[in-house]
């Protein structure tokens, strides 16, 4: 899908899912597999798309497994709306269709899905939200210019208004853990450099001033020691010139 005006929040959601279901190398996989191959291996061990798992929680886990920390969308207000859509606003049939399509993408029984891409679009459909085509649960598979077949996951939206904000406390950020939680490893966070604490208590101030005095005294001493040697060198040079 190409659009005239980029909608950053939509693009954040789509791009993070696209990356998680892409053939790019997953930095969090010790075996060096792609994002989707790593996800397929994790899914084979733990079906995180069964009805024991909430979609909004799964979306959060998938996002943080790519970012290594922050969830998506980055703006909290939008994030809560996104979680609310997946948690409360999707019709039951659509929730199930998402699980079915993604399960097929991850099981890949016909071996014809190299990767998946996600997008949302307005469409004249029956329910408020549907997964194309008509919540059938069948993945829509097409081909890219390189001849790879891939799945396009369209979230069709009939509702022509902004996504509503959840009531206060209705959605949690991050969403509550599911009873059987899946662990999707993400990239390790870069360790932040610890800044030295700058406390200005009287005692520490005294200590620091003492240290400064000592160090400056040492410097003076050192300078004093070096100075005669330098003078001697200069003197030597002068003699040799003569």
């Amino acid at each position, binding site marked *: *899908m*190409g*659009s*005239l*005006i*980029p*909608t*950053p*929040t*939509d*693009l*954040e*959601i*789509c*791009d*993070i899912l*696209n*990356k998680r279901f892409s053939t790019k190398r997953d930095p969090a996989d010790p075996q060096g597999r792609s994002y989707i191959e790593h996800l397929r291996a994790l899914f084979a061990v733990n079906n995180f798309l069964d009805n024991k798992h909430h979609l909004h929680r799964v979306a959060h886990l998938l996002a943080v497994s*790519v*970012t290594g920390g922050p969830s998506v*969308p*980055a*703006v909290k207000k*939008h994030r809560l*709306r*996104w979680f609310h*859509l997946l948690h409360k606003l999707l019709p039951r049939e659509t929730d199930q269709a998402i699980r079915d399509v993604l399960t097929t993408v991850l099981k890949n029984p016909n071996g014809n899905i190299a990767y998946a*891409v996600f*997008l*949302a*679009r*307005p469409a*004249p459909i029956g329910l408020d939200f549907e997964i194309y085509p008509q919540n059938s649960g069948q993945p829509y598979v*097409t*081909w*890219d*210019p*390189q001849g790879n077949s891939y799945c*396009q996951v369209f*979230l069709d*939206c009939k509702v*022509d*208004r*902004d*996504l509503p904000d959840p009531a206060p406390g209705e959605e949690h950020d991050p969403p509550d853990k599911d009873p059987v939680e899946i662990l999707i490893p993400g990239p390790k966070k870069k360790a932040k450099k610890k800044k030295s604490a700058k406390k200005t208590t009287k005692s520490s101030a005294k200590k620091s001033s003492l240290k400064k005095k000592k160090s400056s005294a040492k410097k003076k001493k050192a300078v004093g020691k070096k100075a005669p040697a330098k003078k001697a060198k200069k003197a030597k040079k002068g003699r040799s010139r003569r």
Partner: protein
Amino acid sequence: MLFSDRLSEQEALEAKEAGRERLLEMLVSDFQKTFPDLMFQVLLDSSIINAMALRLHDKRNVMIYGGLALHPRLAANSLTFILLHETGHHLAEGCRLVRDPALACECAADHWAATTGANLLQQRSGRCLRLDAAVLELSVIMSTRQKLNKRYARKLSTSACWAKTWTFRSTALLEQTRPPTNVGCCVTYA
């Protein structure tokens, strides 16, 4: 398009009263004549301020939603450019869109619209695009909607893509700058 901006009913009414629907009909007719392999749709029921190119079951679709088609600040030149840009996603060569490898990227679509697309449209339908007028009209709605968000500034600054902000984009359009061709230079938010 879950988080897109929408046009108010009052603004849509303003454009309808000014004969916008007739203009849209003529535009679609000219585009259909020029690019018969593509399908052009004006979806006035949607208040989303946007347009979209989509390939579905090997059909190449261009959709312009009501929020953009009926925007009172836009006129013939900007609407022509919008349709050319979306057509460019299907017909331009070069860099592909990260989100859909079947389509050309934003920069390639813009450049195609301003050059090849505009020429084809004029030759086959007689409709002439005044690019400076289109950019001026679009600036009213794009300058506030396509700003360089601080949150993504670092990610976007490493990209050669000039479709990341309207400032770069409008300059590139007017100067007809060639789009970047290196793989992976397109804007992404992940």
